[in-house]
């Protein structure tokens, strides 16, 4: 079996007295789309900087694509494609010149470079603007060009930092499609994003880190079912009696009961039988007009795990 794409073991990064990442251990398998989530200052950028070799860990081991990042950083970088949050394109140059420069840095064979540039500009639909200065591009076009640049040297592992930040819906969908296409081609993708909808849509697994520590790691569905509540909206003919509310709160699997705008809202854990017990209790005492069930929300999971206070 091939080695994982990323393997962090007890990785710690300190800046003087501040511990940015504290004994973080996680494994990203090859071919998966892995989301790294966390509030501002949680340590995710530091983690990614260590993975991409921009920063050295204070302790612990970091292996990327089977190589030790500390001893073989250059060979790892050759296999790593990155879209930084800032896009970091040379705005005075054309798209083609930016890609050619990247190809030279990554030593893409000259015989293949031109055809590879053509192929990627076609992929991100920038063919007709290839000779225009990047400074004339929209935000979405720049992100697409950054994606083309990251893919130019055909990396095994792609790191996307906020890949759809500040882009329109069309560009966002196009970038999502590219990411999903990469997965089908067996590439490993590491994403950091503040758009949890994006993380949920793209990620095979998500890691949530906070204050430098891993607080949850699983598939989006598992995270929702483990940490999120299913919410039942029940519309009754008459307002529920206090006795009904007390009875509902005592049911196994019910975590909260509230009324709002004439609707009874019941929060449930992942227990699949809890819904039936709630409906039975309600219909025994009142006339139920309508029922609606909301699946758990990743935003709620995130807030539950990392708290609601604002971070700098």
């Amino acid at each position, binding site marked *: 079996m091939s080695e994982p794409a990323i393997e962090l073991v007890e990785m710690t990064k300190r800046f003087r007295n501040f511990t940015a990442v504290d004994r973080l251990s996680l494994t990203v398998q090859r071919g998966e789309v892995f989301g790294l989530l966390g509030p501002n200052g949680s340590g995710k950028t530091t983690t990614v900087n260590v993975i991409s070799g921009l920063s050295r860990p204070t302790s612990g081991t970091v292996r990327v694509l089977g190589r030790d990042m500390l001893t073989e950083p250059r*060979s790892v*970088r050759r296999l790593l494609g990155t879209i930084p949050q*800032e896009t970091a*394109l*040379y705005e005075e*140059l054309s798209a083609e010149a930016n890609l050619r420069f990247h190809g*030279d*840095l990554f*030593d893409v064979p000259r015989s293949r470079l031109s055809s590879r540039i053509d192929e990627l500009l076609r992929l991100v639909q920038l063919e007709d603007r290839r000779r225009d200065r990047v400074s004339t591009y929209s935000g979405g076009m720049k992100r697409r060009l950054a994606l083309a640049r990251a893919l130019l040297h055909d990396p095994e592992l792609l790191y996307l930092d906020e890949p759809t930040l500040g882009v329109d819906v069309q560009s966002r969908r196009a970038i999502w499609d590219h990411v999903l296409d990469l997965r089908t081609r067996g590439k490993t993708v590491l994403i950091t994003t503040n758009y949890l909808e994006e993380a949920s849509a793209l990620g095979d697994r998500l890691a949530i880190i906070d204050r430098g520590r891993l607080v949850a790691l699983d598939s989006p569905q598992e995270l929702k079912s483990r940490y999120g509540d299913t919410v039942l909206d029940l519309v009754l003919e008459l307002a529920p009696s206090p006795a009904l509310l007390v009875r509902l709160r005592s049911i196994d699997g019910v975590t909260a009961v509230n009324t709002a705008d004439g609707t009874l809202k019941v929060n449930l854990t992942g227990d699949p039988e809890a819904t039936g017990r709630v409906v039975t209790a309600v219909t025994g005492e009142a006339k139920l007009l309508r029922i609606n069930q909301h699946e758990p929300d990743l935003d709620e999971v995130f807030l539950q795990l990392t708290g609601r206070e604002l971070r700098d």
Partner: protein
Amino acid sequence: MKPYLRAVLAIAWKDMGVWARRPSTIVATVLPAVGFMIIILISAQAVGRNPVALVVLDRGPQATRLAHSLETSNSFRVRTETPERARQLLHDLDVAAVITIPAGFDETYSAHRSDPVTIEINNLNLDFTNDLRRSLPAAITDFYAGQNDSPVLVQVHEHDLRSQDVSLVQFDLIPHLALLLTVAGVVNCGLATAREFEDLTIKELTLAPIARSALVGGKLLAGWTTTMSLAAIVLVGGAAAGLLRPAGWYWLPALVVVALFGLAAAGLGALLGASIRRFQPVIAIGINLSLYLFFLSGGISVAAFLPDWVQTVARFTPTYYGVHALQQTIFYQSTDQLGLDLLVLGGTAAFTVAAGALALRRSIAA
């Protein structure tokens, strides 16, 4: 091509491409040297040969000869006018003085009486006034010395230290070339470095599988090449105009000096850019620093004639040696102190390149 060399050339080519697409940077680089050169050209015209009005009230052969002597003098730019017009020109500050050769000049000359040539001076400032006070008697002495029956038999034998005369404008071209080289090297390489940090494109470079030395080498190569391209324009233009034309093999040391100048300036630029990491302060500091170096290397006067304390400071200024070497090789076909000049310039280039490379590596690591 080896990946290392390919990366160096790619970074250099990219930096040159960005430089060529930013005309404002090129203008900022060229402007100080061009501006000062224009000032020198205008000043040379204004103070080198003062404009005077000549009023000739005698049509005799001696008066005509004196008038011709004044007109062909290197001290004045002469326009012959009527007395009224000359007075008006003096009043309007169009001329610095009015020289009048009076009626009866030939007669007094033949009688060996003293010449009543008069000069009305616009003593606007002492520099102009002293020039005129010196120039008119000198021109009259020349006039007498050229006469067959002249009682003035003094002959001056001039022995020149140099093999050729160099005009003020020509002489001043060298420190201005030095200024251009310094500003271009410091600003171009400084900006190319600082911009990577300010625009955050440094990530593209640090995430690439290239050696740090390739990055440093590419930056310095671009800074040096852009500086040399500007120097080439000045040297070719200067040679075509006959202003900068070293004879024979003296081209070679002149070009080595220019190349070392550019390298030292590019290293200094990399040091500034990597340390400051913001392009506006790099432009401001780079240009100001270059101007100080320009003045200390004899930008506005011959460095050796400056006050003692300035000369002492100048001897610790690498550009002083560069300017000296260029003047010796380009104008005088001389290798006077060339070894020392090249040693200082080479040492400076090695130091600034090493310091720039170190600063860049530290900034990247941070």
